[in-house]
């Protein structure tokens, strides 16, 4: 195993794969790094299977950008990951 340290990420959940991918594309186009991950159970079961993982410093800006195009983040949580 690598020696990378675990740290906290913000996770956005969406109701459809389409919404998750639209959000991924928009945020990447605007220079916000995101990583698609399997939706963590902690976000709740009413979400699609893909969530977006972000650095916490980008989360607030990302949420504002998505709201502007009416791409609602259905759930927001945090995970510990490497």
């Amino acid at each position, binding site marked *: 195993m690598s020696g990378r340290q675990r740290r906290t990420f913000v996770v956005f959940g969406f109701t459809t*794969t*389409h919404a998750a991918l639209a959000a991924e594309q928009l945020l990447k186009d605007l220079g916000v790094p995101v990583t698609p991950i*399997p939706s963590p159970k902690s976000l709740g079961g009413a979400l699609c*299977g893909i969530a977006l993982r972000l650095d916490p410093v980008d989360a607030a800006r990302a949420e504002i950008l998505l709201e502007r195009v009416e791409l609602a983040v259905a759930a927001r949580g945090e995970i510990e990951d490497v």
Partner: protein
Amino acid sequence: MPGPTPRPVAYLDHGATSWPKPQQVVDAVVRALTDLGGNPGRGAYAMALDASRAIFEARRTCAELLGVPDSRDLLFQPGCTAGCNLMLKGVLKPGDRVVVGSMEHNAVARPLEHLARLGVEVVVVNADSTGLVDPDDVERQVRAAPARAVVCQHASNLTGTVQLIGDLADIAHEHGALMLVDGAQGAGHLDIDISALGADAYATSGHKGMLGPQGVGLLYLAPDLDAQTQIEGGTGGGGSESPDMPPERPDRYEAGTANTPGVVGLGAAAAFVAAEGPEQRRREAELTRRLHEGILEIEGFHVLGPPPGVPRVPIVSAVHDRVDADRIAFALDRTYGIAARAGLHCAPWAHRTIGTIDCGAIRFGVGWSNSEEHVELALRALQEIVSS
């Protein structure tokens, strides 16, 4: 084992399905089968994500081509027939009244006949001898009693007639009705902006004028139109615990694993049509007009639908005074290698309207792959067949 059937010298059945497909479409389908093996929307591992992204992009490309502002409102369906079934059975309920033109294909006619047996009142407005549904006739019917919807094709698969959908939509909306359109012969052959057209629902094929693979079609549903789902099932994790289909589009109307090769192929086809469309439509119109006028010059032939000079999609159907349509189609195929379709074209309502229900017609569907040589060959062949 016998060898493959020889390919036609002239393929003139684009009204049934386009052939060949642009190489980009073939490449996209192969790529989907080769590299996009994961189940779209069913996982966050790299290959499933690639499949999900390919479908996402295909939807956006199709939406852009057809003038759909929010691609979530454009649904992938197994075909135009499935789309027509959803827009009709999902919207019309027993006790509703629907006004429909008489040129409809069975993709609309049969669901409506089914709904009529369940208690939907179906009022059929006769088209004129060219296949055109007069908006004034439709207006008289929607004035006479409240209607839930006006239903009309965008273009006839028999006569090529282009219906006045904008006018019909205005009439429908003025009287509180929905405008539901079967665009099987429209998309790809006509410059379509669904938003501007005023359709509340617009179903279309993916494999005719759109040039995509068979087995995939599109249905636009206006954002505020809540159609009852016709198929329930898995949607990839969103609200999996719920016994009900999710309210969000496109998942609400796309239960089950997507036809990824078909959808990705359709996306490539839409990109091709977007790039080539205006020139392609101009060329198709020229060839169609030459074919139309050439057939009229052969003794005994009558061409169905509007006269030359009146806009039509690239379909020319004809009947001959002495030679039956099926004999003509057989001779075209066996003697000349020309693919064209005889019969009723799954459109008995239209044939009844035009007066050809007892004899059928020989139909030529011109498309992107046709040339002047194909048209001239067909005209020479027709002349020889009816002279022999």
